[in-house]
């Protein structure tokens, strides 16, 4: 009952946060200067009519929002604009219908473009995160258990190094090494121009393309997971209840599993949530280096092309993933720690 109420209150907060982010996301891209029509003004070949047509196509000729004097949509202000014919209302209506606008650059719906790329990103990031979490936690547990030994020192050094390596630099180095020494593809998702005889062959090709970016991603995140896991576990292992567990005659493995890890998982859950939330952003460097057709690369390109609708869509997705990941972390927390459950 109590936990049900907790879930409900967290859910309501998440919804409010998303609504706020939607508004903010709209405002940012109206405040920023520049739209395709203005870009077109610099081109002498475009006629006034053509520019006006561009503005109409993207809905830029409409007022941004109803008059400030009247925020009540049913009571038109002195400027007497139809409240349902403003950019903000259309933006909200489109969102409700799962539309994110039309890309300035490709003239295709942003939602359609993103839905193609997001699976590539999820594939790459998901695989990298899972590997980084498993390996990082495992290494962290091992190092904490063998704290202050040579093994701990080695694992610590490796993790610190891995964590401080710039992502793009490690990507380039691995790309160079992998393509030269192992003959792995240098980028992309599938070898272009190949007609795959069956799914197995296609998956094999996909796997070969995945190796290097996944490896880069795993190494970069593994260090962070290892360091956090190690330090929290060392803290937990010095707690009095661990001594109690030892005094009870419990075996090492049982102490670790039943007493230490459950407590040490709390900071890990937060970290995983944050990292999952930044999935889109985190992939920008790796996707650019390996020409991986995912969201991160698309965001990178969109910045250069001033493709506001594309960026707006990506930002919204980023914000919503962060909020949902935090919601999930909250819920996992209350499951792990009874003290959170009861106020």
């Amino acid at each position, binding site marked *: 009952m109590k936990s049900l109420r907790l879930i409900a209150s967290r859910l309501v907060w998440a919804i409010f946060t998303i609504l706020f982010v939607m508004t903010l996301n709209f405002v940012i891209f109206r405040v920023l200067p520049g739209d395709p029509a203005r870009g077109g003004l610099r081109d002498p070949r475009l006629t006034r009519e053509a520019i006006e047509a561009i503005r109409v196509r993207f809905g830029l000729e409409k007022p941004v929002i109803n008059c400030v004097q009247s925020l009540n949509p049913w009571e038109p202000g002195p400027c007497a604009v139809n409240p349902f014919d403003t950019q903000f209302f259309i933006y909200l209506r489109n969102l409700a219908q799962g539309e994110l606008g039309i890309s300035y650059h490709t003239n295709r719906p942003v939602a359609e473009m993103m839905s193609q790329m997001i699976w590539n990103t999820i594939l790459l990031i998901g695989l990298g995160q899972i590997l980084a979490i498993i390996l990082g936690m495992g290494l962290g547990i091992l190092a904490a258990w063998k704290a202050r030994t040579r093994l701990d020192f080695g694992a610590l050094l490796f993790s610190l190094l891995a964590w401080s390596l710039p992502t793009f630099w490690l990507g380039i180095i691995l790309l160079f090494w992998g393509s030269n020494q192992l003959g792995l593809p240098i980028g992309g998702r599938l070898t272009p121009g190949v007609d795959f005889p069956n799914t197995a062959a296609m998956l094999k090709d996909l796997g070969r393309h995945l190796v290097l970016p996944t490896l880069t991603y795993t190494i970069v995140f593994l260090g962070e997971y290892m360091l956090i896991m190690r330090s929290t576990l060392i803290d937990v292992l010095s707690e009095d209840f661990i001594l*109690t567990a030892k005094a009870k005659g419990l075996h090492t493995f049982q102490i670790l599993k039943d007493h230490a890890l*459950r407590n040490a998982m709390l900071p890990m859950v937060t970290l995983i949530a944050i990292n999952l939330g930044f999935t889109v952003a985190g992939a920008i460097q790796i996707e650019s280096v390996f020409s991986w057709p995912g969201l991160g690369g698309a965001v990178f390109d969109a910045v250069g092309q001033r493709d506001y609708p594309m960026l707006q869509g990506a930002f919204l997705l980023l914000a919503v993933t962060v909020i949902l990941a935090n919601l999930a972390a909250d819920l996992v927390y209350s499951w792990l720690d009874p003290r959170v459950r009861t106020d």
Partner: protein
Amino acid sequence: MTTPTTSAPLLAVRDLSIDFITPDRPPAHAVSRVSFTLQPGEAMGLVGESGCGKTTLSLALLRLLPPQGRIVNGSVQFNGRELLALAEPEMADIRWRHMAMIFQGAMNALNPVVTVGSQIGEAIHRHYPFMSPPEVAARVAELLDMVGILGARADQYPHQYSGGMRQRAMIAMALACSPEIVIADEPTTALDVMIQAQILDLLDNLRRHLGLAVIFVTHDLGVVAELCDKVLVMYGGVTAEYADVDTIYNSPRHPYTQELLKAFPDLSKPQAALNSIPGYPPRPDALPTGCRFHPRCPLVFDRCRTDQPALLSVSPVWSSQQSSGYAGTANSKRSGEVRPTHLASCHLVENDK
């Protein structure tokens, strides 16, 4: 409880010395050559100020010292078995099954994310793996009932318990496997006075009913007077004085014991001012030369500064019981038939002889 023919003590600690080893520093002697014995059903008080090595000594009995702590000398025999020679898995079998511990500060000694019932149950399961889950649950309920906690609260977490309840749950946990010895390390610190009395009554009752031998680690001499048969007074990691409880209270021979007793209120003399011992106990890595108590001793003389006093028998008459085995039984306090050796490490004792 114990028959007069008891030969071997339940627990015999001889010359136990513990060092703390830190890199780049000489080892700190936390405990030096401490000896005592414990008979079945007997209660011993382990007394001294904070930092005298009481907790270190009790952890060493279970071989639970932190990694820096090393047992450098001595022996710990439980029922004639040398615990210091056991392999780690064998020692783990002894822990809790035969020798359990009540830790100070039950808030931290209980895992916050595991229910109290399963923390007790896992100890039972560890030492009686063939008990079925319902049997374990029944035993947990029985134990909680024994310490006055409703069985239904087994499913609750430590933070849902009050301080006194947590300490009682800790006691129930210690009794889970019916051990022969329970070490209670300051079981009442951080509890208010009423609850302290409750907990101590509970411990004393359980001890009498279950025939437990208990080591009370405390700095509260009142607790010791009420509950214990004999007392080991520690100072700076060594035995200052070791005798039955009457002797300690009525004719203490070590100046430290005497000062310690003066520091506690005597209800028979209402107006007496309480004494405090100036200074602090020595740090184990900076022990004074000679007698470890000499910098604070009111009766100090030259020899104390240079020579470390040996642990001497105060009364040669009483020390003759070595032939008839060790005599500090649970009955000693009440019957007065036999008394344990009265030992004190002070040059004044030697001068008397």
